[in-house]
């Protein structure tokens, strides 16, 4: 039995099933990210003076990723328009660029995550605090950082640090009281940063897998039922635009403010 309105729109709503379905799904996604954004506001406004970090992230990498996602949104909508005009080759070209953009976005994000996991705040037994990126020649006995010493934890809250330009610090392990990298467990900011961007990255991965599947293995559907295929591209595109939309708000909130 054929499912009604899987391809042709319902006369009363003017929508085919999947289009209504994706909008309902996106409505639930708005609430999911909305809850996390409200958590961010709550955490940030309630943070004690001088404890909320600013500019810990590389603005230029964040801006590049924003432009990459915007470019991918343009190519997604152009790929759909190409199918509407019956040009499958152009669709393949545009959607190929979309997939490359997705890979570029995830590559840059991975680089940023790696940077945070290699970044350590080290409290020494004599009361000093060392902050820097762990170097590859660290051993079980000596921790090698490229970074700086600060007198107070609050001195770490302002500004982006370019540790590659800073001196090497060698710290014997037996002088270390505690040490912790800038992972999600480090403080409230890194917790909400990893939660928001991690969930967003999962959406990028999910969207890219769907777009790739339609672009590659499912391409034969275009030759059998072009309208159904075009609808699938439209629905996956709506999801992709939503992913772009979320990032448009994440970028200023996490990187700039």
């Amino acid at each position, binding site marked *: 039995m054929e499912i009604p309105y899987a391809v*042709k*729109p319902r*006369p009363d*709503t*003017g*929508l085919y099933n999947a289009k*209504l379905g994706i*909008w*309902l799904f996106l*409505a639930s996604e*708005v*609430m999911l990210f*909305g809850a996390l954004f*409200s958590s961010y*506001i*709550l*955490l940030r*406004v*309630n*943070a*004690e003076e001088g*404890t909320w970090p600013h500019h810990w992230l590389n*603005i230029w990498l964040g*801006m590049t990723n924003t*432009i990459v996602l*915007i*470019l991918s*949104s*343009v190519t*997604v909508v*152009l790929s759909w*328009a190409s*199918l*509407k*005009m*019956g*040009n*499958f*080759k152009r669709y393949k070209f545009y959607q190929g660029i979309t997939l490359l953009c997705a890979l570029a976005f995830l590559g840059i994000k991975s680089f940023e995550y790696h940077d945070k996991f290699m970044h350590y705040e080290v409290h020494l037994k004599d009361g000093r605090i060392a902050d820097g990126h762990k170097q590859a020649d660290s051993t079980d006995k000596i921790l090698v950082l490229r970074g700086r010493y600060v007198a107070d934890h609050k001195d770490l809250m302002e500004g982006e640090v370019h540790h590659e330009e800073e001196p090497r610090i060698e710290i014997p392990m037996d002088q270390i009281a505690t040490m912790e990298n800038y992972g999600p467990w480090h*403080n*409230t900011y890194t917790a909400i940063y990893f939660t928001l961007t991690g969930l967003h990255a999962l959406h990028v991965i999910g969207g890219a897998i769907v777009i790739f599947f339609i672009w590659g293995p499912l391409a034969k559907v*275009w*030759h059998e039922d*072009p*309208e159904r*295929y*075009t609808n699938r591209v439209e629905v996956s*595109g*709506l999801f992709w*635009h*939503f992913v*772009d*939309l979320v990032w*448009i*708000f994440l*970028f*200023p*909130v996490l990187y*700039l*403010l």
Partner: protein
Amino acid sequence: MSDTHQPSAAAGAADEHSLEDVRKHVRTYIIIGIALMAGTLLTVWASLIDFGSREYNIAIALLIASVKGFLVVGFFMHLISEKKMIYSVLVFTVFFFIALMFLTLWSMAHGSIIHIR
């Protein structure tokens, strides 16, 4: 097997996007894309300027992000020319989203604040 079909095969007769509309919209999509990229540069530029207080900087950044968001939802997702059914769904989303944000602000305005490190 051909890679091309008659456009009407993909653009169904009852479709809301006529072929002529799609052709016209391609230029719009590119212009919107350029505007979004310019908006991104504007956001970064505005963040480097001191507007007097951090609150002003936050408001300006969120205003630019909202305009960019409108362009994405309105034009790329075609919400400005969407069916009434979609608007009916989104009215509920907007209502609950505003309620969620209102609850957050309300809870902050009525004490029970814990300082978080």
